[in-house]
C-alpha cells in the first residue's frame, strides 16, 4: 500500500534538494494537524462570535486525542468520558483567553492534563503518569490506548484497519498518491501539486474523492462503530 507513497516521497525529495527549501521543511511534519492550524484558528474566531457549530467541529476533531490524554491518568472509562467533556467545557469557557501563541491543540492539551490532575488530586490519588505540554506535539497515544482497550474494541479496530487498507489499495493511483502524500507526509496541497505536476485544484479534488471513496468503503463499519 505504501510503495506508491514512498515512491512519491522520493520524487519529492529530489526537486527539494535542487533549491526548494520550503519543500524540505514540509517533509519534517510528522504530525501536521497537531501544529499550527489555520482552520482551528478560524473555528476559534467563529466560536468567540457565538458560533456553536464551529465549536462542535473542534470537539469532533479533538475528542479522541483529548480522551487518550486523560486516559493516561484515569483508567475508568466513565471518568475518562466525564473528564473529556469537562475539558471541552473549560476550553469553551476560556476560549477568549486563547491568544493563539501556541497551537489550539497544545492549549487544549494543557487543559486536559490539568483537568485530569485536578480530578486525581481531588480524589486524593496520585497521578498514574506524567505529561508535559511539550508532549502534545509528538505523543503517540495509540499504544497506550491499545493497552486499555477491551478485546471487542481491539477486534473491531483490527477489522476497521484491514478495511481501511483495502479501501486505500482500491483507490485509483492518482487519488491514492495525493491522499497518502497528504495524510502520511502532511504535505500541503501546493507541495503535492508540484510533486504530481498538476494544478492545486486538481489535488484538492483528488484528495476529496479519495476521502469520499474510503468513507463509502468503510461506511457500514464506521456506522457499526458509532452505534457501539
Amino acid at each position, binding site marked *: 500500500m505504501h510503495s506508491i507513497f514512498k515512491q512519491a516521497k522520493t520524487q519529492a525529495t529530489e526537486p527539494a534538494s535542487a533549491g526548494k527549501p520550503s519543500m524540505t521543511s514540509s517533509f519534517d511534519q510528522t504530525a501536521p494537524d497537531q501544529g499550527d492550524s489555520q482552520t482551528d484558528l478560524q473555528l476559534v474566531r467563529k466560536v468567540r462570535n457565538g458560533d456553536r457549530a464551529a465549536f462542535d467541529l473542534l*470537539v469532533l476533531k479533538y*475528542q*479522541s486525542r483529548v*480522551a*487518550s490524554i*486523560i*486516559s493516561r491518568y484515569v483508567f475508568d472509562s466513565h471518568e475518562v468520558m466525564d473528564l473529556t467533556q469537562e475539558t471541552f*467545557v473549560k476550553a469553551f469557557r476560556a476560549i477568549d483567553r486563547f491568544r493563539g501563541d501556541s497551537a489550539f491543540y497544545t492549549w487544549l492539551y494543557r487543559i486536559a492534563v490539568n483537568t485530569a490532575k485536578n480530578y486525581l488530586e481531588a480524589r486524593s490519588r496520585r497521578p498514574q503518569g506524567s505529561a508535559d505540554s511539550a508532549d502534545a506535539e509528538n505523543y503517540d497515544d495509540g499504544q497506550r490506548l491499545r493497552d*486499555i482497550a477491551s478485546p471487542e474494541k481491539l477486534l473491531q479496530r483490527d477489522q476497521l484497519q484491514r478495511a481501511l487498507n483495502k479501501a486505500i489499495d482500491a483507490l485509483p493511483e492518482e487519488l491514492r498518491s495525493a491522499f497518502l502524500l497528504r495524510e502520511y507526509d502532511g504535505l500541503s496541497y501546493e507541495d503535492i501539486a508540484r510533486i504530481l505536476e498538476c494544478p492545486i485544484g486538481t489535488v484538492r479534488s483528488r484528495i476529496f474523492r479519495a476521502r469520499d471513496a474510503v468513507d463509502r468503503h468503510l461506511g457500514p463499519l464506521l456506522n457499526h462503530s458509532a452505534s457501539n
Partner: protein
Amino acid sequence: MDDRLRETLSAMMDDEADELAVRRLLSFSDQDEVRGQWQRWQQIHDLMHGTGAAADSVSPATDVSAGVWQRLDGRVPASEQHATKATNLQRWHWPAVAMIAMALVVGFGAGSGWQGVGEPELIAAQAGAEPNATATAASVSEVSLQGLDDRQRQQIHRYLLEHAQHNSVGAGRGSVGYARLVSADAGGY
C-alpha cells in the same frame, strides 16, 4: 450537502480552506450533515494515524459535543455529574464554610457595630467542624449573636443565603468583598 461543499469540508480537514469557505460551510442549513461527514472523515484520519485507538468510552465515533453542550447549558444528566460534581464540591466546601463564617463576623461586626461579649463557641458553631474556619472565627470572637430580634434574625438568614449564593456563583472570588460591601442594616441586598 453538494460535492462542492463537501470538497470544502475536505480542504478544511487539511487546513487548506480559506475563511470565506469556512464561513459558507458553517452557515449551511443542515449542520447535522456537516458534523456527520466531518466526524466520519476524522475517524478515518484517526484510524490512519493510530489515534483512532481511543478509550472505550470515547471512541472516534462517539459524539462528545452533546454532553459538552448539556453541561454548558446546565442540563447535565445525573449519571454524568458524579466526577466533576464531587471534584467541585470537595474543592469549594471548606472554603465556602470559612467564607460564610468570615462574612458573618466582618459584615455584622463592622456594619452594625454590635457589642461583642466574647462567645467563640457560637461563632465556631457557624463555621462547622472545619478547624481552620474555627480558628479564624475564634480570633475575631468579639461578636455575639445574642440579643437579636426577629427582624435581625430574618435579616441574618437572608444575608447568609445571599452570601452563599454569591459565593457559589463567583466560585469563591470576591466573596469577602461582597460581605464587606453589604451591611446588615442596609437592606436591599
